[in-house]
């Protein structure tokens, strides 16, 4: 892969509801701010990828609402419907194909629609939709399959909520900075066993943007470029009953490819910080297994042993993760942006000292069916 880098980033504050802003407003602000961050003008951007979802926005061709706001007038533009990591990957492909600077911008307002009806739309119209499945109950099936197989307790996964909400206290943009105990999580409302309210990510509004540049463009940027070393995505089968929900094999395959591109052979030793898509507490240990940081079933041990805490050798979700702000589709881009901030040394109170290599991860579809893995570094 040719050398390409992220040279500009921007994200909104993540909130339960941004009543005064349309998604057009959010996209405009992020486009403007990412340009400022990179020190570029809109005329430096030669193509745009927007990320939106027609179900979230309540609008067919949701991309039509934001082209102007993304500065895409008279430019090559396209739209990915899916997580920000996937949209950003398409943006990266365009740079690798010869564009100079791709602006990638994602938005969503969870406050505007009905999250259960929207996520019910992920399920098969003929065999699943009428059963009333949505994101939480389907994920609960996965949590149960995983936790039952490896004897992981509800208290164990509650630790993830405690850690990530505490990390969020150091992130001024996070929606849910909280000081929690395992007891608080255990006592929160039961939603779909084993998931309780504090095992679940919130509904959020927000937007984010990044600028991906070709090697010969990075010197124009005012910030330190963060190099994209490896990216890969992979999807598992669709029907929940066709999958082994406790085995994130699609993630393992994507990670293997991304690591190979980045020349990483020992992820635990070579990666300094991880931002992954923890839409639910159980996902963090499960995805860490898929990312080959540990053996199947032992993801939670990393947390219990302090490996993934802020002071540990592999801090996971220093931003507070998706549990602390979950703008659907923006969330993966936010993972990339947090990685960039960490690698630039701009992560403030949550800075992981000396971070050189970071991993960002996003998911699409029910129960993490499809994964996208990013490896980035501040070393060329």
């Amino acid at each position, binding site marked *: 892969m040719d050398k390409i880098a992220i040279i500009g980033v921007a994200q909104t504050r993540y909130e339960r509801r941004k009543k005064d802003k349309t998604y057009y407003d959010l996209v405009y602000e992020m486009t403007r701010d990412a340009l400022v961050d990179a020190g570029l003008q809109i005329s430096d951007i030669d193509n745009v990828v927007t990320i939106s979802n027609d179900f979230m926005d309540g609008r067919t061709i949701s991309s039509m609402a934001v082209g102007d706001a993304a500065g895409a007038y008279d430019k*090559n533009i396209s739209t*990915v*419907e899916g997580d920000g990591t996937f949209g950003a990957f*398409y943006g990266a492909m365009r740079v690798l194909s010869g564009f100079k600077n791709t602006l990638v911008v994602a938005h969503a307002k969870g406050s505007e629609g009905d999250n259960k009806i929207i996520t019910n739309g992920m399920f098969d119209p003929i065999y699943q939709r009428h059963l009333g499945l949505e994101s939480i109950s389907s994920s609960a099936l996965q949590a149960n399959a995983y936790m039952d197989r490896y004897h992981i307790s509800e208290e164990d996964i509650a630790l993830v909520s405690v850690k990530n909400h505490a990390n969020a206290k150091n992130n001024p943009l996070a929606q849910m900075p909280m000081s929690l105990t395992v007891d608080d999580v255990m006592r929160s409302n039961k939603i779909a066993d084993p998931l309780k309210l504090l095992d679940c990510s919130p509904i959020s509004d927000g937007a984010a943007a990044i600028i991906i540049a070709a090697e010969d463009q990075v010197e124009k940027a005012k910030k330190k470029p963060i190099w994209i070393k490896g990216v*890969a995505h992979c999807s598992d089968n669709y029907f929940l009953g066709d999958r082994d929900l406790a085995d994130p094999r699609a993630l393992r395959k994507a990670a293997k490819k991304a690591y190979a591109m980045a020349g990483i052979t020992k992820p635990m030793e070579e990666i300094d910080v991880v931002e992954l898509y923890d839409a639910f507490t159980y996902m963090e240990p499960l995805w860490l297994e898929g990312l080959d940081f540990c053996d199947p079933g032992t993801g939670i041990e990393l947390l219990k042993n302090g490996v993934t805490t802020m002071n540990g050798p592999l801090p996971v979700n220093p931003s507070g993760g998706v549990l602390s702000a979950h703008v659907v589709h923006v969330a993966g881009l936010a993972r990339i942006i947090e990685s960039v901030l960490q690698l630039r040394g701009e992560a403030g109170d949550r800075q992981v000292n000396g971070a050189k290599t970071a991993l960002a991860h996003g998911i699409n579809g029910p129960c993490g069916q499809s994964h996208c893995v990013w490896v980035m570094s501040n070393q060329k």
Partner: protein
Amino acid sequence: MAQRVAIVGTGQTDHKSHRPDVSQREMIQEAVMRALADCDLTIKDIDAFVIGNMDHFESINYVDTWSVEGAGAIMKPIMKVTTGGTTGSTVAIAAYYHVASGLFDKVLAIGWEKNSESDTTAAIITCSDPIWDRFSYSGAIPSLATEASAYMKQYGATQEDAARVAVRDRNNALNNPHAHLRRPITMEDVMSSPMLAYPIKLLDVCPRTDGACAVVFAAENSAKKICQKPAWVKACSVRHTYTWFGDSSDYTSGLVSLKRASQEAYEKAGIRNPAEELDVAELYLPYTYAGLKWIEDLGFCRPGEGAQFVADGHTNMDGKIPVNPSGGVISTNCIGATALLRVAESAIQIMGKGGNRQVPDVKQAIATGFGGCFWSDVMILGAAMP
């Protein structure tokens, strides 16, 4: 290093008004299997997938993950790209960049729609702005009617001029075994069909169709091995320039997005005189008047000369630049697949696989997509490696 890309195989369903015999996913799989058979590959050979349609037409969220069994993408990378009417060309262009980036060798582009499963007008209305437009918006026809009447006023084109486009495309469809509407029509049929919104009559516009299309894109080295006559991607370009319906209404300047996109694509492909250098065109003409006006924006003829150009037979099968040998959009319109069908049909012409609809000796072809807010996509294919 960016690499050269070619189309090596195409597949499409036999398009119909209704496909009750297959579920959505099964219909997609039908197109994918045909595309693989066309280039003698198996599903194991495909490295990545790009798919698109319109979410609220069938009410499927996350079409990428939902489709994997039909697409053949189990344990493979798949991505959803969607932009309304231009979805099919957007998907093709995304598949092109997948390969051009050097990251993937063989990529499948898939577009589909099962329009029989919802009220198409209701679904189209949901593409209008919920605050400003949805209250009064009534679907695509009024804005097209506006464009058509402005064009007629500006250049004196007539309803008969437009009817010629319908007769050309619909009769071309007789040569395409996959086309949805395959009944011959006459000028009288078009002229006497019911008026929908002046000057647009029923036979001036596209139908709604159930169908899917799949196209295999491959990198340089593989393309040459897979296919004797690959269709090389020489250029692609996109202009999705408008956000608001009320901004795209400068009809006297032509379809600006198509003008800009085609100019950029011609420049990349080194084309100076499109009508001479292109051998065939598969254009996303959702209604007949576009067949007069947009060929001007594409530079096939000068502004105001579209009607005469068509009347003179230059766009007929034996003309200077045959337009829509497949029968085009007014013969087949499975919306998410429609623009991908333009790309597929252009590739078919380059590969010489057009059967009864083959234009002899095609060296260079153009495919376009139209949608959104008067948006345009362009892809130029060639027989010679760029």
